[in-house]
């Protein structure tokens, strides 16, 4: 009886372990497939729309970068907006940084075309995205650099004086009171 129970236990262990092995093998295969798609998008080759069904945030991020590189900014921004709160903190920081990049590159294009209002609005959005990325990861050097680019493109109203610093205005609308100046550097 004891031996029979022992054999029965071994059979159960065997089937559980086998099921676990099959499940993890399948899971690993799916992960490898997603990584393959990410790699394909990173190389500039698009994927089938059906492959984006139930896509992980990493895959959506890769697709958003692909769309941005093809200058399909609206689609890229829409995709990134969906995933900025998904995944790990590191992934969220990357999503917000890349979202900031899509706004900033458009802002620069508008600034080059002297469309100041559009450039100002987009630069403000870019700054917001970079600040959020840095709030999640304060060591994100690319976000620091591009935030500085955005700030230079759309300088803050604040003038730092050591005597008194302006408190934050109560009304949010006043935050838009910016001077749309586009410094072109020193002569």
């Amino acid at each position, binding site marked *: 009886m004891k*031996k029979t129970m022992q*054999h029965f236990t*071994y*059979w159960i262990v*065997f089937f559980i*372990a086998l099921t*676990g*092995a099959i499940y*993890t*093998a399948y*899971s*690993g295969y799916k*992960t*490898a497939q*997603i*990584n393959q798609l*990410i*790699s394909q998008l*990173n190389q500039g080759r698009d994927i089938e729309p059906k492959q984006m069904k139930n896509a992980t945030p*990493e*895959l959506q*991020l*890769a697709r958003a*970068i692909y769309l*941005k590189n093809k200058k399909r900014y609206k689609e890229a921004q829409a995709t990134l907006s969906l995933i900025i709160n998904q995944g790990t903190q590191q992934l969220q920081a*990357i999503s917000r*940084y*890349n979202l900031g*990049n899509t706004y*900033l590159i458009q802002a*620069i294009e508008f600034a080059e075309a002297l469309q100041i209002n559009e450039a100002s609005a987009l630069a403000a959005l870019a700054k917001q995205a970079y*600040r959020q990325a*840095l*709030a999640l990861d*304060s060591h*994100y*050097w*690319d*976000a*620091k*650099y591009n*935030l*500085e*680019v955005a*700030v*230079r*493109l759309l300088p*803050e109203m*604040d003038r*730092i004086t*050591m005597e008194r*610093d*302006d*408190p*934050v205005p109560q009304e949010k609308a006043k*935050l838009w009171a910016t001077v749309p100046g586009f*410094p*072109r*550097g*020193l002569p």
Partner: protein
Amino acid sequence: MQLVKILIKSFFIVLLLNACSSSFHQPITFFQVQSPRPFGYVIGDEIKRRIIVEVRDGLALQYRSLPGKGEINRWLNLKKVAVNKIKTSRGTRYQIDLTYQLFYAPLEVKMLELPGFTLQFRQFGKMTDKQVPPWYFTAAPLRELAIRKQDGKEYMRPDTPAPFLDNTANQIRFAMFLCIAMLAAIYLAWVYGLLSFLPKYQVFKRPCRQLGKLSEREFASMLNMMHGALNQLNGKPLFQHRLTDFFQRFPDYQQLENEFRWFFECSNRYFFGSAKQVDKADVERIKIFCQHCLQVERGQR
């Protein structure tokens, strides 16, 4: 006597003065602001400040006097406020950790200020204030003043590529499950006699198969075959009077003791007795005995 009176008076005067001294009545017994290096900060950096205050018993920090999390001004964000309260022998020790984040992009190295604030402590409705002074530090730009161009546009850092999904956990789990499944499979294979290549576990397998093919006319062969298997298991010839030793060495076979004894008696009767008559029941019993030995060998009994 006069001298003693003077000494006593002096002692009380000193005691009175001491009681009136500020340190005896000081509600805040220790105050320290620990700040990091005051230079070398760039946009996005975090600045941590620690304030340590020790107060007398009964004084409680008013948490609302601490600066609130969030934007302090357009370029400074208070990211984290953590207060650690420790009871000490002299009162209470507060350790206040403030984490600021800088979002100022200076054109050149510029001095900035972390604003000061007033800490408030309450005791029996009375408030005691302690001023935390402002702190000054310098911030520097990350990029040059002249705009770098790339492809005719302003230079900016490129996108961060999407990270690949980590498959390591799956691989480790797969290897673990596979190992467990293989170990269980090996055990079960051993139990069911599938590991026939292991000489230790194939003593009764062949005799069982061969006994099935023999008839009662070959009873002598059947007995010899069974003796051979038992001798092989024992490592030397096994006799009836040695069965006790045998069971000590192979306790799993103890449960078949009656069958062992019957087999030896049957063998003695056949080989050394006068009657050579073979009973059909004996033939079946030897086969069953061999089957039972095989089951013990495989751990099934």
